[in-house]
Structures are given as structure tokens and as C-alpha cells.
């Protein structure tokens, strides 16, 4: 009983923090699912903006029921996400990343200038609060379950193959384009969910909300947490929401400490912080596996075979 009471009081004291974390978790999932499938897309942030406007305006201006508005926002973004993935089908790696960053920022510019719809620089304010923490929590659980399914079995292996070696994947019957499109669409939908919930919980949307800072934050969450698994994205969302809040207590240099932490993790823990958890888990079960921290051995490296086509 004591524990239940203390958990509930802890929850009551930290509800906003939890809400933030849950919403960022959805955004981080959005980036993670793309990265894990070899798609360096940051378009989730753009869909965060579109999703927040769509859901917020439908609820506020059209008085749609919340559930319907959220679904409509997510479907809209799924469609747009698919269209974007078709447009950007030729791009890979940093080029894709920059194209999607440009898309995100373009969404912001459009939102700022389409005043009749979005309120422009004044933003959209006074959206009725129409979701509960529980709804978002269940959504995050559901999303996590879907992502967990996506990481295992046939589709899990297939997406790894698509990420690591597209040509090989094709030679094994994988329709690479379809799988990439799926990942892109899922990413868009998760971004839209995060945005929609943010709008419906925090009641206001500013055109600058989904700017470069949010892109950087989402990417950082996923890389620091570890993009190999949804658990990494969740860990990143928890830590990067929570750490800045705690760090403010150390005064004006907190940002520098935060930056230093990012450098250290990015440089020395390639699998993200979640890999430490995984390694610790393995060690505790006594199963010696090659450490993720170790550089892969070159045993299977091809010899300098020079025979040509």
C-alpha cells in the first residue's frame, strides 16, 4: 500500500514531466524507426508540426471529436509521408537527412506565412485540452509494441538487410522500396501522433515549435539512447527530457555539461546508452558475446581480390 501511495504521489508530482517524455518518446520512435531501417530521415519533425496543426485545428475550429481528429491528422501525415518517400526515393544518408531537414523547416516557413489557417506568428492558441496522460501512455505502449514487432522475425531481419546492404536484400527477394516506404510512413505517423498529442495537451502551437532545435533534439535522443531498438529511443527521450531539467540546477554552465555528455556518448558508446543496458544484461546472464563497444574484428574482411567484372 505504501508503495502504491508513493508511486501515485510521485506520479502526481511529475505528471507534466511524464507527459513531455511520452510525447518525445513518440517523436523519438519516429526518428528511430527510420534510422533503424537505414533511412536517415528527420521528416518526423515536419510531420510533428503538420500533425499538431491538423489535430489542433480540427478540434478547435471544427469541433471534431478528439479521437477522430487525431486519426485524421495521422492519416494525413501517412499520406504525405508516403508522397515524400516517393519523391525522395533516390536519396540516401546525409543527403536524405538534409532533404528532410529542409522539408521540416519548409513546413515551419509555410506555417508562419499561412496565417489564415495557422494564425501565422500568433500561433494557434486556446485548443481545448482533450487528451489524458493515460491515452498517450497507451499510445506509446501500442507504438512500442508495433516497433518491437518490427524489430523481430522476418521483417526485423529484412529491415536490417535493407539498412546494411540494399543490393544483397534485393538478391533475397526484398522489395527494398516497399520496405523503405513502410518505414517512412510509420515514421511520419509517429511524428504526427507526437505533434497531435502535444497540441491537444499543451493547448498551443507556434510555427517555430518544430524548428531546427526540435530536429536536433529528436536526433540526439535517438543517437544518445541508441537507434538499434525502440528501447534506445525511449531511453533517449527519458534522459534528454529529464537531464536538462535537472542540469539547470547547476547554474549557467549546465548547457556546456550537456554538450560534453553528448560528445562523450556519441564518441565512445556507438550503440547508444541502451547498449550499456544490453551489455549489462548479457553479462549478468553470463553469456559472453562480442562487446558492442569493441571494434568489429576484421576476420571476415574480404582479401584484396582484384578480379573485375
Amino acid at each position, binding site marked *: 500500500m505504501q508503495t502504491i501511495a508513493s508511486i501515485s504521489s510521485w506520479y502526481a508530482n511529475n505528471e507534466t514531466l511524464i507527459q513531455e517524455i511520452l510525447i518525445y518518446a513518440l517523436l523519438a520512435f519516429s526518428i528511430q524507426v527510420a534510422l533503424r531501417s537505414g533511412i536517415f530521415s528527420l521528416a518526423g519533425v515536419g510531420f510533428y508540426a503538420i500533425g499538431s496543426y491538423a489535430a489542433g485545428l480540427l478540434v478547435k475550429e471544427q469541433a471534431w471529436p478528439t479521437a477522430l481528429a487525431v486519426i485524421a491528422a495521422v492519416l494525413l501525415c501517412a499520406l504525405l509521408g508516403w508522397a515524400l518517400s516517393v519523391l525522395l526515393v533516390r536519396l540516401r544518408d546525409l543527403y536524405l537527412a538534409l532533404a528532410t531537414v529542409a522539408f521540416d523547416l519548409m513546413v515551419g516557413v509555410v506555417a508562419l506565412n499561412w496565417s489564415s489557417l495557422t494564425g501565422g506568428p500568433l500561433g494557434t492558441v486556446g485548443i481545448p485540452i482533450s487528451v489524458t496522460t493515460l491515452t498517450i501512455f497507451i499510445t506509446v505502449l501500442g507504438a512500442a509494441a508495433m516497433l518491437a514487432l518490427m524489430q523481430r*522475425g*522476418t521483417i526485423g531481419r*529484412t529491415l536490417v538487410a535493407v539498412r546494411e546492404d540494399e543490393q544483397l536484400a*534485393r538478391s533475397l527477394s526484398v522489395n527494398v522500396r516497399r520496405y523503405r516506404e513502410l518505414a517512412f510512413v510509420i515514421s511520419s505517423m509517429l511524428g504526427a501522433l507526437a505533434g497531435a498529442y502535444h497540441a491537444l495537451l499543451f493547448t498551443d502551437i507556434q510555427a517555430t515549435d518544430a524548428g531546427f532545435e526540435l530536429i536536433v533534439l529528436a536526433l540526439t535522443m535517438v543517437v544518445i539512447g541508441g537507434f538499434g531498438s525502440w528501447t534506445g529511443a525511449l531511453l533517449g527521450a527519458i534522459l534528454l527530457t529529464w537531464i536538462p531539467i535537472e542540469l539547470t540546477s547547476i547554474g549557467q554552465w549546465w548547457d556546456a555539461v550537456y554538450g560534453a555528455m553528448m560528445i562523450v556518448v556519441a564518441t565512445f558508446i556507438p550503440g547508444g546508452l541502451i547498449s550499456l543496458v544490453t551489455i549489462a544484461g548479457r553479462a549478468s546472464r553470463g553469456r559472453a558475446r562480442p562487446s558492442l563497444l569493441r571494434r568489429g574484428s576484421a*576476420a571476415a574482411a574480404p582479401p584484396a*581480390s582484384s578480379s573485375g567484372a
Partner: protein
Amino acid sequence: MKDARVAFGGVRALDGVSLTVQDGQLLGLIGPNGSGKSTLLAAISRMIDLSSGTLTMEGRDYTNAPAHLANALGIARTFQTVRLLRTMSVLENVMLGAQAEWVRRGPLATWLWLSRARREEKRARRAAQQALERVGLKDLGRRHPQELPYGPARKVEIARALACEPKLLLLDEPTAGMSQAEREEVGILLSELSKDGLAQVLVEHDLAMIQRVCNRVVALNFGQVIAEGLPAQVAADELVREAYLGHRDAGMEASAPMMEIGRQ
């Protein structure tokens, strides 16, 4: 495959090559570096587009089909370099081949059709294990590719291709870098597969191996077929010897092929 032509920029990589492989036939493909062997395999497996010509598989034209459909038609291949995914175990790598049929259902089915997925997972595991046993690596399933020496890693590649249950297997220098003993094992394996009725195309520099296992050989140079026939005939062919040794052709760089021949 008829009259295939592939051109990269002004360079003709394949120039009017026609090739037919029967069930149970093990076709050896030889030729010096840059003669178009790997290009030919890439063309057959639809990794690259033909600029002209046609590809048929069991009477079906697949010249313009996307790459992943070539595998669906029964064409599996290995690559010149080891291409195992380091984040997966050996068994999982082979399962990539074993699951090919299920993967064709598309991403949504493989993601969300849970009841089928579970059955499929079990079947793929069994098939992958069998494929590993077939190449003689029964116990290596749990290891990771980067822990394997080069020879076994190449065998895993063959197992992965076999797990697709292909009708035509394309092998791009499967024994390069292997020890003599390993090479012989692979040779025996390929002969057995051939006896089981599998059509195979083997790109190989090891002429002794070609002579031992192949029942037909095609020699390529400058993207053209310069000789075709039984292994012994082709090996004796004047043009082939010339191409390899480069005596009368000043434009050829002879040093690399010499080394290859020296392996015999």
C-alpha cells in the same frame, strides 16, 4: 539469356553474350579481369539493367523485372566479396535466404500477420539450419559473421543462397581466399547440387576447379564469348590462352591473370 549488352558510359561491359543454362548444368565462367564475368552475373540477377537483349527464366521474360523478382523466379546468387550482416548471427543471415518466399508477401504481411509469422519463423529456422548443414557448418549458427574465418564465411554465403531454394544458383568466385581443402569441399558440394538438378553458373579463376566440377565452360573477354564447350576444350582453346596469358595483345595487363593461373 540472349544477345545481352551492357554498356557503362562508352565501355561495353557485355557485348552480345548469349548463354543458356540447363537444369543440373554447372556452367563455368572464365575470363581475365574485366572480361565481364561479374557483370554477366549482375545482369542475370537483375542487379544491373541490360541496354539491349533479353533475359528468360523457364520461358518467362524477366528482362525488365525489378531485381527482387529475379530471386522470386528462382535465381539466387553469392557475391564476389563476403556480404554477411554483422549485426546478426550466422543462422539469422542464412534465414534471410530461407525467408525469401515469405518476404515477397510484402512488408505489411511480414509485420502484422502474426499467426503466419510464427509458423514461418519456425520453418525458416529449420530451412536455414538445413542449408548450414548442407555446406558443412552445422554448429556455427549462433556465431557472428565477424567471428568466422574467411572460408566458413564464404560457405555461409552459399548456404544463404541455397536457403532460397533456387533453380539457378550464381556463384561469384565462391572459393577465392579459401584453403585447398576448403576448395575441394566446395567443389564436391557444387557437384552434388548439380546432380540434384540445380542449374549453376560458377565464376572462378581456379581453372583446375573448373575442370573438375563443371560440365560446360564459357570463356569471356572484352564482354564477348570467345570460347564455349567442355572444360577441356575451352582450356585448350587458343583464344582463351591468349586472353589469359596476353601474349599478342599489348592492351592487356597480363600480370594479374598470370597470378591467377599460377594458383593452379
